[in-house]
C-alpha cells in the first residue's frame, strides 16, 4: 500500500472516529453521571437524522433544518426523560435495559409509521458540494471535512464546558459521587434532566449531520449504538476526553484494519481465503482492541469514577 493511500485511510478513520464521538459523548455523560444505561441513545441519533431530514425538506434549507432539529431533539429528549427515564433511575440496570430497549422498538416502528420504511434522502447542502482531490481519482467530499471540523469544535466546546464551567464541575462531581453532590444542596434531579436532554441533543446533532452521508432509515441507530458503547467503555465511562480518544482509536482501528487486514492475511493464506478471513478479522478488530485495552485498564483509558 502506498503512503498516499495510507494517509487517506487514516483520514477516513479519523472521520469515522469523530462521528462516533458525537454519538458517544452524550452516551458517556448519561451513563457516567447518572449511572443509567440508555440503549435508546441510538434511536435518538436516528430521530435527529429524521428530524433534520423532515425539517430540511419542510424549510427547503439544510441549515435551517439542522438548526431546528437541535431544539426538537432537545425537547424530545426532555419528553422521554420526564415520561419514562425519570422513573428508572432508582431501578437496577436490568430494568433500565429492558425499558430503554422497549423505547427502541417503539420509536423504530413509530418512525416507520410516520415516514415509511423506505430510506429518506437528504441532499448535501449546496455550500459544501464538491470536494478536494486527495489522490488521483479520489475526491474527499467537502461535506465530510465540514463534519470533521464540526466534530472537533464540538469536542473542544464540550471539553470547555465540562472542565472550565460551574455546570461542568457539577457534572464531574455527579459522575464521581452523586449522593455527595446531592447532600451539598445541588438539585441532582434537575442536573440529571439537563445532562440527559443535552445528551439527546448531541445524538440528534450527530444524526442530522450524518443524514447527507448515510441512509436515513428505521433502525439506523442500532449499529451506531454498539460502536458507541465500545467507545465509552474503552474511553472510561463518564469521561469526555476518554470518549474522544477512544472514538478516534476505534475509527482508526476499524478503517485501517479493513484496508490492511486482507493484505496482511495474504502473507499466510491464498488470496481468496485471505480476503474473506481478512474481512472477518477486520470486523472483529475493534472488539479485540477493546478486550485488550480492558485487560490492562479494566475501567477504560480515562475513568471518571475513582471509587
Amino acid at each position, binding site marked *: 500500500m502506498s503512503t498516499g493511500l495510507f494517509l487517506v485511510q487514516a483520514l477516513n478513520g479519523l472521520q469515522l472516529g469523530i462521528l462516533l464521538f458525537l454519538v458517544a459523548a452524550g452516551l458517556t455523560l448519561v451513563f457516567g453521571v447518572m449511572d443509567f444505561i440508555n440503549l435508546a441513545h441510538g434511536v435518538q441519533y436516528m430521530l435527529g437524522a429524521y428530524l433534520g431530514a423532515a425539517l430540511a425538506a419542510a424549510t427547503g434549507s439544510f441549515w435551517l433544518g439542522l438548526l431546528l432539529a437541535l431544539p426538537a431533539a432537545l425537547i424530545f429528549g426532555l419528553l422521554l426523560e420526564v415520561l419514562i427515564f425519570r422513573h428508572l433511575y432508582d431501578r437496577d440496570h436490568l430494568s433500565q435495559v429492558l425499558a430503554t430497549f422497549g423505547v427502541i422498538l417503539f420509536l423504530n416502528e413509530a418512525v416507520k409509521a410516520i415516514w415509511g420504511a423506505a*430510506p429518506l434522502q437528504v441532499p448535501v447542502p449546496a455550500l459544501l458540494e464538491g470536494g478536494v482531490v486527495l489522490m488521483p*481519482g479520489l475526491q474527499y467530499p467537502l461535506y465530510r471535512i465540514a463534519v470533521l471540523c464540526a466534530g472537533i469544535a464540538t469536542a473542544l466546546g464540550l471539553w470547555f464546558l465540562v472542565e472550565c464551567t460551574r455546570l461542568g464541575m457539577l457534572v464531574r462531581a455527579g459522575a464521581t459521587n452523586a449522593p455527595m453532590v446531592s447532600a451539598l444542596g445541588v438539585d441532582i434531579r434537575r442536573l440529571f434532566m439537563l445532562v440527559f436532554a443535552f445528551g439527546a441533543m448531541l445524538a440528534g446533532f450527530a444524526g442530522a449531520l450524518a443524514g447527507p452521508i448515510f441512509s436515513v432509515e428505521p*433502525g439506523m441507530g442500532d449499529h451506531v449504538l454498539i460502536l458507541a458503547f465500545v467507545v465509552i467503555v474503552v474511553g472510561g465511562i463518564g469521561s469526555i476526553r476518554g470518549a474522544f480518544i477512544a472514538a478516534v482509536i476505534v475509527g482508526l482501528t476499524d478503517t485501517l484494519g479493513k484496508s490492511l487486514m*486482507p493484505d496482511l492475511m495474504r502473507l499466510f493464506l491464498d488470496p481468496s481465503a485471505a480476503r474473506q478471513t481478512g474481512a472477518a478479522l477486520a470486523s472483529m478488530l475493534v472488539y479485540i482492541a477493546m478486550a485488550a485495552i480492558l485487560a490492562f485498564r479494566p475501567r477504560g483509558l480515562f475513568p471518571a469514577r475513582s471509587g
Partner: protein
Amino acid sequence: MSSLSRRAAMGGALGLLAAPAILHAQPAGGVKIGLIAVQTGPQAALGTQLRDGFLMGLRHLNGRLGGLTAETVMIDDELKPDVAVTKVRTALERDRCDFIVGVVFSNILQAIVRPVTEANTFLISTNAGPSPLAGRGCNPFFFATSYNNDQVHAVIGQVCEDQGYRRVFVLVPNYQAGRDAVAGFKSRFKGEVVDEVYVPLTQLDFAAELSKIAAARPDAIFTFMPGGLGVNLVRQYRQAGLANIPFLSTFTVDEAVLPAQQDAAVGFFSGSNWAPNMDNAANRRFVADFEAAFNYVPASYAAQAYDGAMMLNSAIRRAGGRLADKDALRAGLRAADFTSVRGNFKIGANHFPVQDFWLTRVAKRADGKFQTEIVRKVLENNVDPWVAECRMR
C-alpha cells in the same frame, strides 16, 4: 366449581374452538392466499413492494383467482426464519390457506419450504430464488416467478465481458448471498478481478473501500449491496467523485431504494429481469395503475408478485377451480398461461422461470421520479445453471 359444571364449561369451550374450524373446512367457492413478506425492520420497503404488486394483480383480476373469490391473509415474516415458520404453520392449519405466496429473502424461503410443501400446499416464491431449490432441492409443490439468484449476478459478468472490461473491482457484503454474488459474477466474467472486498452487513461508512477503488483504478466495479447498504454506497461513491468508473450492480439500485439515492444513482447500471419502462401492453397497464394506486414507482419485487397473481389465476382456471386437484393445479402452474409483464416468460423443468435478462440504467423521469430503464438485452431465454441437478419427484 363442581366437576359436573367444569365438564360442561369445558365442553362449551371446546365447542366454541371447534366452530371456526368447521366453518373454514368449506371454502364456499373461495380461495385463500397466505401472502408472506417482511413488513417490519429496515427491509420492510421491499416487502411493501411485493405486497402491493400482488394486490395490484388481484385488483386487475377483480378480486378473483380463476373464478374463485380470493381472500388474502398477510403474513409478516419479520425477516426471522423461526417467526416465519410459526406464522406459516398458523396460516396453513388455522387459516387453511390454499396457497402460500411471496417471500423477499432466501433465508426465509428456505425455512418455510418444508412446512408448506409437506402439507401438500403450493409455495410460490415471487422473489427469493436460492440455488438449492433450483437444483437438488427442487420440489413439485414449489414454483418461482422470479429468478435464481446466480442468474442476475451472471448478467453483470456477461456485461463486463461484452464491454471489454479487463480489470473489475468487486465489493460485496460478507455473508452467503455476497459470496454467491461473486461466484455468479465470475461464472461469466473471465477477466481479472483486481480485488474482492467483503464488508460486514452492518457497515456504515464506505470511505475505506472507496479509497481502495480509487487506488486500484479498475475498468468497472461490480457490487451487490441490498437495501440501506446500497443507499450509503451509491451516495458516497458519487460524493467521492468515482462516478467516472462504471458502477455495475445487482439489487443495489432499484425502485425500492431510488427515492433515497435520487440523483446520486443516475447513470448507474443494474442487472435485472424487468424494468418499469419495459415496452409491452401488460407492463404499461401494470405500471400506470400501480403508480396511480400506490403513488410510488414499482420495483421488480412488485412486478414479480403481480406475475405471481396472474400465474395463480391461470392455473386455478385451468384446473377448473378444483383446489383439491393438486396435479391439475401443478400442470396449470407449469403451463404459465398468462401474459407476463416481462413479455418472454416460461416455467422450466425445475419450476424456475426461463426468461430474458437485461442491463438497466437509472434515469430521472420527466415527472422527477427515478426508475431503472432498459439498456439492452444481455441473456435470452436464460435457464438457470442448476436445472440439470433437479430430479422432480
